[in-house]
């Protein structure tokens, strides 16, 4: 399936004409990218050896939270960070990376992996050795003589001026500020493959670890890189499978899905109290809660717990389905098992089971964790659950997704439809005509008819229908789920009609009675599999693909489809692809 962007020639022309701008005449040349905020923080964690969050030094007044360090968010491209076009530099960004370097530099001597000797011997000589070892790992390759000399000279002069402790802090901060740390510096190994440059072993080590772990290479990868053992398809295959089994892979794969589904958007929605509190947080109406202000506060607190729970449910579902379960895209889109959350806060115990209605909760394997937003704290417990197969089918019918694409009172079929078409079928919708958003029906309880009827009424004339004939059905499919993701058979007293049909390019019409049926049909679609593979490939490379790269993408997509949509096999196919192991040469070479 082709992914070509009709606007690319215009973009290239525009970029070429604007002075002092970034020029990506050929993104296939893989211009260098920076560590994302996620990658930066994970890299420091692993560089230092603080294996879990609690092993960092105690927070205090000046450092309320030693890790992670908040860095400015990138501009998401197709929803993802780590993309070339989304990484722009600004004075503020540079300041924050500097602040991060100083912050973490100050923690170096407390890091499990720092000292290369035991306490009585921790003198300047050992410090210098430790710094050298740290730099090698931080830079993700061996240092050359000149680099080593600069590092040693820097440390020595700092010791003279500030003493050993501060000199270590400032030297490590320097390492963390170095372009060799904060950038993904990549090199070719001098050979070519079908006219493309093969990438060096050290580069492959980093590409593997940042794709599969969102972090730096481990000792095995470093060792194989130094011995030139990251070249053949078999060698790379073996590493992917090895790394897949590490807990960091779970975090990284879940992170991809969090971005793909835009799970964070749920936090900026606000379900309407009058519409939903009665069903989902009846404590809002209890006798102890007096006055509108208090009701709002109690409702806010309830939403906090419910939303955090729903996001965790989806993350755990993704992780378990891929790593413990069937492991396929199809399972992600159709499995009617999942989790419910019980959250315990100052309001007592609430459960997301209220949103899911009929649900069978199992006693096995619960997962607990605490959340705290600075004002409220909750203990969350996720329990495995089985949902009615006629009501739930995988990701598209989970609370975190449904509630994220909803208005306060009524669900948002346009947002849901757009999400399905863009993120699942890779259909690019373009922009609405001027004034379109202002035509949306009011989002209030005081209405006649159903949500579907009201939206259909304002989008049926010729100017609107060319797009809305595609968007609306994909959104109406989910009319059985309200703005909290809860099941409903009626809307405003009238029966919900979730039936419709969408057109998938190359595959024809897909008819469905409701969202569950649509999800099952999407799960069987080749185009949907190709789209998922495209998202992953772009994400792995951190850039859009060029037209010349289409054949390589198609081979990845074929591989994925032939494997039955297995996510691990997809990542193996990407890593083994020339797209991942090579880059196009510079012009004129």
């Amino acid at each position, binding site marked *: 399936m082709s992914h070509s962007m009709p606007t690319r020639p215009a973009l290239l022309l525009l970029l070429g004409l604007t002075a002092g701008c970034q020029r990506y005449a050929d993104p296939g040349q893989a211009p260098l990218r920076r560590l994302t905020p996620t990658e930066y923080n994970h890299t420091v964690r692993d560089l230092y050896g603080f294996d879990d969050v609690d092993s960092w030094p105690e927070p205090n007044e000046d450092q309320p939270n030693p890790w992670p360090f908040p860095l400015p968010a990138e501009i998401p491209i197709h929803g993802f960070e780590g993309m070339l076009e989304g990484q722009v530099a600004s*004075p503020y960004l540079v300041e924050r990376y500097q602040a991060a370097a100083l912050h973490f530099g100050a923690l170096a001597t407390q890091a499990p992996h720092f000292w290369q000797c035991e*306490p009585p011997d921790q003198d300047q000589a050992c410090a210098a050795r430790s710094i050298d070892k740290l730099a090698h790992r931080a830079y993700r390759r061996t240092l050359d003589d000149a680099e080593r000399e600069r590092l040693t000279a820097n440390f020595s002069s700092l010791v003279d001026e500030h003493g050993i402790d501060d000199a270590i802090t400032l030297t490590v901060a320097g390492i963390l*500020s170095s372009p060799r740390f904060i950038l993904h510096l990549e090199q070719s190994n001098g050979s070519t493959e079908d006219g493309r440059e093969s990438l060096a072993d050290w580069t492959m080590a980093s590409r593997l670890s940042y794709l599969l772990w969102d972090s730096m290479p481990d000792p095995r990868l470093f060792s194989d890189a130094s011995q030139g053992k990251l070249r053949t398809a078999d060698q790379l295959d073996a590493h992917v499978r090895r790394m897949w089994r590490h807990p960091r892979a779970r975090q990284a794969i879940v992170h991809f899905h969090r971005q793909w589904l835009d799970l964070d958007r749920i936090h900026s929605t606000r379900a309407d109290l009058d519409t939903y509190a009665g069903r989902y947080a009846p404590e809002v109406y209890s006798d102890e809660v007096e006055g509108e202000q208090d009701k709002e506060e109690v409702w806010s607190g309830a939403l906090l717990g419910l939303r955090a729970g729903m996001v965790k449910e989806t993350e755990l579902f993704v992780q378990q389905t891929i790593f413990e379960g069937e492991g396929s895209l199809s399972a992600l889109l159709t499995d009617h098992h999942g989790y419910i959350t019980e959250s315990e806060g100052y309001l007592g115990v609430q459960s997301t089971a209220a949103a899911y209605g009929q649900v069978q909760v199992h006693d096995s394997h619960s997962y607990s964790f605490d959340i705290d937003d600075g004002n409220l704290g909750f203990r969350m417990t996720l329990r495995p659950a089985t949902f009615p197969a006629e009501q739930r089918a995988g990701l598209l019918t989970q609370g975190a997704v449904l509630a994220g694409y909803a208005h306060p009172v009524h669900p948002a079929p346009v947002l849901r439809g757009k999400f399905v078409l863009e993120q699942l079928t890779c259909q690019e919708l373009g922009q609405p005509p001027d004034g379109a958003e202002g035509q949306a029906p009011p989002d209030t309880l005081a209405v006649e008819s159903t949500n579907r009827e009201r939206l259909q009424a304002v989008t049926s004339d010729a100017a609107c229908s060319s797009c809305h004939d595609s968007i609306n059905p994909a959104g109406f499919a989910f009319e059985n789920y309200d703005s909290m993701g809860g099941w409903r058979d009626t809307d405003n007293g009238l029966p919900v009609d979730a039936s419709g049909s969408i057109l998938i390019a190359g595959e024809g019409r897909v008819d469905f009675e409701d969202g569950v049926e649509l999800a099952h049909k999407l799960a069987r679609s080749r185009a949907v599999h190709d789209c998922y593979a495209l998202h992953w490939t772009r994400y792995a490379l951190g850039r859009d693909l060029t037209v010349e790269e289409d054949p390589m993408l198609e081979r990845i997509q074929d591989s994925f489809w032939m494997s039955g949509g297995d996510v691990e096999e997809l990542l193996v196919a990407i890593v083994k692809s020339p797209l991942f192991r090579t880059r196009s040469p510079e012009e004129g070479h």
Partner: protein
Amino acid sequence: MPKSMQDKLVVDRRRFLTALGLGAGTVALGSRRAMGSDGVPKRLIILSTSHGTVYEGWKMRPGGRSPSSAWSAELMGLDPAAFSRALAPLHPYRSRLQVLDGLSMTSAELDLSGYRHEKGWLHAWTGAWVHFTGTDLFSTGPSLDQLVAAQVSRPDRLPSLELGVHECRPICHAGLAQQLPIEEDPRRAWERIFGLATSSDPLVRAQGSVLDFALAEYEALKPTLRPIDQERLSTHFELVRQLERRIQGLSEATCDAGSIDALASSAEGYDAVWTSMADLVAAALSCDLTRVVSLSLGDLPSDDFGWGWYLSGDAHNDFAHRIADDAQAAEAMTDYTRKHAEQLAYLIGLLEAIPDPDGGSLMDHTLIVWGGELGNGWHAYDQYCALTVGGGWHFDLGRYVHWPAESTPVAMLSATGDFVMSGLPHHHLLVDVANAMGLGVDHIGTRTLQSKAGDRVDVTGGLPFPV
């Protein structure tokens, strides 16, 4: 070696912070400053609010002037009742106001790409066409504040400050697809502005050596890179060099920074955050730690302007979108603007109360521009209601200036869905502000607008003030 180094940092910084009170401080005087024509550094504040306003609740007609001609009327002689409901809170400061009635964001209307809010946010302060990738919208040029910062900022201070309240939209751009991040937390903003100057921590003061090292690494690396990577790297490291100069300058500045503990955190209410931001801006400008500030204000909670009880209290979907159909929604959005006018009045009051070392008050040497992303909440770009405060070295103050609603021969979509002639393109305001700040330019963003029907409109030059 357990936490000894950590403790040392803690003790130094904490002791120093608690020693800071709200006493009179000394203001830093640099040896060289970028000056306006009378030798005094000028400051610019951009205030950007959401959903435009309701024209009928904002407009004024002093002396019953006609809406079909261009005129200018004095504000000084007006009593509060003569001010519109939306602008009444600014009555005490009318001697500094220049209310601009008759502008349109014509370029945004003629730019066919992208969603209206997003497009408005980009056009408002860049005057440049947007680039739409199919899913994402980018600016193609720098915003006014960045152009001004390049002109008036000191190399050893913050070139500009981007602050916001409550889920605001980015309005500042450094160039093609270079959106600047906004700080929404007053305490983090305080750290950024005053952290270096107020810290006695030797490690904080030794930061320069860290940057020196990074720059040396960059210089060594550069020749080994491909040209495509060199260019990307050099942008980043030029910013690091600038950071080094800034750090040195900021750490040498002395300033009454107030106490960080007095500031709200971004989790608190809108008003608390606004007040903290305004206080920060006043302190930062008074100490010459920056000369250009932009404030992007997100949606007001409807309780804050007295309308939390109406519909579901969602200012965007319930009020802003329904001003044409629902008189109460229109009233609500007028009160929305009025609330922002109150907030602006607070800021003006702060600036007036600070003496400027060059004479008069800080406000005497400051220009504030208030605009936003839309003309009104129903996504119109015409009747773009704007005003300036201060800038008396360039503008005639204390007046209400009106241009006819349909002054420009290019058709635009009105709030009622008809096509009407455009008002005065807002580019002229951007150019005038730029020139007030010493840029000496004839255009900001684009020079010419072109419609589908082939009309071409020249948007160079400043505002054509009626004589």
